[in-house]
C-alpha cells in the first residue's frame, strides 16, 4: 500500500527540518570571524600544499565494481528467501545454480588478487 509510506514522508520532512533548524540556530548563535588562516584546510599545522582534488587509487573503484556484483546478488536473495518455503527443494536447487555461477566470478576475483590490498 503506497499510503503506508506517508508516515515515512512526514518523518523525512521532520528530520530534515530538525537538521536545517539545528544548522540555522548554530549559525545565528555562534560568532563568525573568518580570517585567511582559519579558512585553510587542516594539514597538521603546516601550510596546505595543493588541493585534495586529485586522482585516487584504482582499488577503490575496483571495490565499487565488486560491490555492485554482490549487492545485486543480495537483491536476488531477498525475494527468493521470502518465498523459499513454498517450494523449498526446487528453489534451493535454483539458487545453488545461481550461486555456483556467481562463485566462478568470486574465485576469479580472489585468484586475480582483487581482494588484496598492498
Amino acid at each position, binding site marked *: 500500500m503506497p499510503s503506508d509510506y506517508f508516515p515515512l514522508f512526514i518523518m523525512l520532512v521532520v528530520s530534515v527540518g530538525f*537538521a536545517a533548524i*539545528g544548522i540555522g540556530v*548554530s549559525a545565528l548563535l555562534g560568532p563568525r570571524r573568518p580570517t585567511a588562516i582559519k579558512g585553510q584546510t587542516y*594539514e597538521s599545522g603546516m601550510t596546505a600544499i595543493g588541493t585534495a582534488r586529485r586522482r585516487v587509487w584504482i582499488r577503490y573503484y575496483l*571495490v565499487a565494481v565488486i560491490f555492485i556484483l554482490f549487492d545485486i546478488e543480495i537483491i536476488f536473495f531477498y525475494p527468493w*528467501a521470502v518465498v523459499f518455503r513454498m517450494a523449498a527443494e526446487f528453489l*534451493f536447487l535454483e539458487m545453488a545454480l545461481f550461486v555456483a555461477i556467481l562463485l566462478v566470478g568470486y574465485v576469479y576475483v580472489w585468484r586475480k588478487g582483487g581482494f*588484496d590490498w*598492498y
Partner: protein
Amino acid sequence: MNILGIYIDRPIVDFVILIIKCVVWIFALLTTFAYIQLVERWVIAKIQVRIGPNRTGPRGLFQPLADALKALFKEELIPTNADKLVFVIAPMISVATALLAFAVIPVSPPLNLFGLEIPMQIANVNVALLYLLAVGSVSVYGTVLAGWSSNNKYSLLGSLRAAAQLISYEVTLGLALVGVLMLTSTLNLNEIVDYQKNFGWIILPQVLGFILYIIAAIAETNRLPFDLPEAETELVAGYYTEYSSIKFAFFFMAEYINIITVCAIAATLFLGGYLSPLPFLPIVGEPGIWWFALKVFILIFVFMWIRGTFPRLRYDQLMNFTWKVMLPLALLNVLITAGIIIFFQPGAAQAFAR
C-alpha cells in the same frame, strides 16, 4: 470521533498523532543518544582505569547538555576552498537518514490511549527490512560527500576508506539477514516479531547469522576495531576533520543513532523484539517497551565493551576479513538455514497459513 467532548474527523486525529509521534521519536532518539554517549565515556573510562566525566552536575550527568550547548555556540568554520553547499548538506544527510531508519522498528505492542489504538512505530511497511538497508546505503552519501567537499587530504582519504568499508560490509550485512527471511517468509518487522512469539527467538537457529550481523554492524557504524575511516592516530579525524560546531555534533549524533538502530534491528530480528524472554510468567511475561529497551542496551553495552577491548585492524586485514571470511560464512549460513527448513520444517504451520 469524540475527544474530550469535541467531535474531530478521524483523518485529522490520525495526522496530529503522526506529527506528535514523529517529534516524540526524534526527541527520544536524541535523549538516548546523549546519555548513551555519556554512559560510553563512563564504561570506556572504567575499562581503561580512568575516572571519566564527573564534573558537570552530579557524577557528570549534565555533560551531554553542556556538550550540546557548547556545539551550538561555537564558531562555524568552512574552509575557503571547500564546496560550500555540499559541505553544509553532508551532515544533514547523515543525521536525517539516521533518524529516518529508526521509523520502521516496532518498539512495543500497540498502545491504547483514550480508546485509540496507537501502533508504536512510525510506519508499518511491508518491506521494512529492505527499507532499512536502503536508508543505510543512502547514509553512505553523508560520509562520502563530507570528505570530498572539505577539500582536505585527510578528509578525502577518510571518506574513500569509509566508502569502501561501508559498501563491503553492507554485502555481508545483507546476506547475514537472509536466513531470518527464509525462516519467517516476510520482510515486515511486526510479522517477524509475531513469528518469534509462536516459534521462539530466531537467534537459536541463526547463531552464525547473528554473529555475522553484529560484526558487520560494528563495521557499518565505524566503531573500533573497524574505525579506519576516522582513525585519529593516522587521519586526524577522518572525513569530518574540517567540521566544527553543530555540524560536527550532527556527525557524532548520526553515528550514535546508527548504533542504536543497528542494535534495535538485531533485537527485533534475532532476540524477539519487545517480547519477554520468560513469556510463561504472569507479570514479567508481558511484552513491552522495557524488554525492547533492555535488549537494545545490552547490545549497545557489548559494542562499548568491544571498543574498549580490541585494537584497530589494518586496512588490508579489514578488506580481507569481509571478502574472504565473512562472505563465504554468510553463504554457508544461508545453506545451513535451507537445510534446517527442508529437513526439520520449523514453524511450517504459520508459513502455509499465510
